[in-house]
């Protein structure tokens, strides 16, 4: 049974250049407003089906048409061509809090926002306690929401949305809600809904969450579906496409005595991959060509976040630098438990001589994806071991083995 069906759906936007019409005559202004403007196809010929109980992930870069699909499905705007068929009650778990009225109390806003997203007053009355408790807002419920902190705002919003009982649920970056423990609560709630057999569409560029939640995913690029398949496979596709679509920095051929030639990421079993998990192993192999024998070389591998901030670095010998023989060689980095948080990272590789001068550099040489692995609070995961000091003889042996947390 199919719950959602998009049949050759396209969406065209018009973009007016207001500056250009600023000095234009009134008539031309009106004409432009009614028919003119530059056309822009945000979506083109989308065919998509979501079966009952299935969770579909839609991934793509900013501007690929993800949010347009969401707007079409939630009926905020109508398609320009094609037809969308929706079977059952559909709710979107988006920024529900945006419907809040600042002067009204939290309680009044529960009713306002709840009815806006299609709940009956009766239903809201019935789940009022549960909404307040989920949001952890009971003591503040009769204050006007303009006195709320942004975190309270968002928690109450999510809590209301979480209490709708739709047949189909649209999710959009909801996991960016509130603090870590509330995010966790949201994720648990969503997984619980999934187990209940709710049909879901999840739109995100958080690949880790897509992999975790979705049965199937589509990759959207420039308003078209370019790939469809298992979320893990698509996540990889998505990463290599980032790599290609973005300008690669200084990629000039090296003229120095050492040139970087190849980079490969491997999992613990030596298989090539770009997908890793926080707190698990990562191996990277860099190949190089040395024109002459070099007494000392330092290889550096820098992991940068999507915003360009340096997050972590691997380094060959700090004090004592290895020598490199002339000809083709390779250096392999190995990390048993990576501390990188879930996300996408660009990788820069540098080769320096003993004076610290750069012999070769490859910026944004690869893009890797780190999915959530070992869960910890805080800014980063740090490898650690633990040992339980139990009463004397009972724990002999067991207590001596260091254990990884997980």
């Amino acid at each position, binding site marked *: *049974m*199919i*719950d959602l*069906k998009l*049949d050759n759906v396209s969406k065209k*936007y*018009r973009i007016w250049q207001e500056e250009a019409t600023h000095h234009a005559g009134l008539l031309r202004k009106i004409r432009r*407003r009614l028919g003119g403007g530059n056309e822009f196809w945000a979506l083109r010929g989308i065919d998509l089906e979501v079966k009952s109980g299935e969770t579909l992930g839609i991934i793509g870069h900013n501007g690929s048409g993800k949010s347009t699909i969401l*707007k*079409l499905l*939630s*009926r*905020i*705007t*109508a*398609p*320009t*061509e*094609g*037809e*969308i*068929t*929706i*079977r*059952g*009650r559909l709710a*979107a778990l*988006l*920024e*529900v809090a*945006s*419907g809040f*009225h600042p*002067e*009204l109390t939290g309680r*009044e806003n529960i*009713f*306002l926002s709840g*009815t*806006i*997203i*299609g*709940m*009956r*007053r009766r239903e809201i009355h019935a789940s009022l306690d549960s909404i307040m408790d989920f949001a952890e807002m009971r003591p503040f419920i009769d204050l*006007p929401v303009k006195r709320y902190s942004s975190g309270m705002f968002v928690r109450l919003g999510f809590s209301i949305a979480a209490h709708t009982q739709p*047949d189909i649920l649209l999710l959009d970056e909801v996991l960016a809600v509130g603090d870590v423990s509330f995010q966790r609560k949201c994720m648990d709630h969503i997984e619980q809904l999934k187990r209940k057999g709710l049909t879901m569409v999840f739109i995100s560029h958080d690949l880790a969450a897509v992999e975790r939640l979705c049965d199937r995913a589509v990759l959207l690029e420039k308003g078209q579906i370019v790939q469809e398949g298992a979320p893990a496979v698509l996540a990889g596709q998505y990463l290599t496409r980032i790599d290609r679509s973005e300008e690669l920095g200084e990629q000039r051929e090296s003229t120095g005595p050492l040139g970087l030639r190849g980079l490969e990421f491997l999992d613990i079993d030596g298989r090539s991959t770009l997908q890793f998990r926080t707190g698990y192993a990562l191996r990277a192999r860099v190949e190089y060509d040395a024109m002459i024998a070099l007494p000392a070389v330092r290889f550096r591998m820098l992991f940068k976040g999507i915003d360009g901030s340096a997050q972590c670095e691997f380094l060959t010998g700090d004090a004592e630098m290895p020598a490199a023989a002339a000809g083709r060689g390779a250096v392999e980095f190995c990390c048993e438990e990576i501390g990188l948080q879930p996300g996408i990272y660009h990788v820069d590789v540098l080769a320096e001589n003993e004076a610290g001068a750069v012999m070769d550099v490859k910026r944004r040489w690869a893009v890797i994806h780190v999915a959530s692995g070992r869960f910890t609070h805080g800014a980063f995961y740090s490898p650690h071991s633990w040992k339980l000091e139990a009463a004397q003889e009972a724990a002999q042996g067991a207590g001596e083995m260091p254990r990884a947390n997980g």
Partner: protein
Amino acid sequence: MTSPESAIANETRPVRHVRPPSYNPLGALRAIGELPEYLDLFLTLCLHRASVRYKQSLLGVGWALLQPLLLMAVYVVIFSILVQMPSDGVPYPLFVFAGLLPWIYFSSAVTAATGCLVSHIQIVTKVYFPREILPLSYVIVGLIDFAMASCVLALMMIFYHVRVGMTVLGVIPVLAVETVFVAALSLVFSAIQVRFRDLGLAMPLLMQLWMFASPVVYPMGRVPARLLPWYELNPMAGILENFRRVVLLRQPLDYHLLWISLVISSVLLMASYAYFKLQEATMADVI
């Protein structure tokens, strides 16, 4: 309904088809069918409109009474003390107050509704619900204010010893016709405002001119006979005139006038609803 539902359907869940927008009066009828589902939103919005308006304002409900009372005082000074304006044999303050009540219902509801889609931009671009609920909720608020101000009218009638007859029941059809007219304008104006903000800027002026083109401060009997056929095309003329007839003058409804108002208002309502639904489809893109 076209073919592709073959694979879908066959269960009790409602199946909905979203298609590109087209101007379709019959489609508008289908849209009405969806409204009962959102009755609760409509009620909640109306409740909250009232409560928001009076929160953090000292006078609270008094605002609903202050506007007609102050305007009445101004017009009494101008048209009763400075200029002798005939008033169908009713004390002028009463005459003008009875005109201001339906007028303020009309002008304040239409003015508030005109800007409402734009002022609710954050909801309109984030959630779907039938958008007409927003402008229509202002119509209800207008009616509530009207009811409160009516109490003042009743007190004034007691003060001036004006008796009420059975004809006062005529208020019901008069108000019904006015509500149809107010709803029609609220829908079409709010939809236009989304594309052309000029309308909102022009509203105070438009309402001012419109008031003097309607029998609010003067009786309709003063309108020259040759202008009357045109004058009567203003639905507010028939509404205001009939309101005074049944409330103050104990006369039966002027059906000729009321019919004109009703026909114009109803046709306008149908056309503006279809227009509204057409605009609604892409409202979130242009707002």
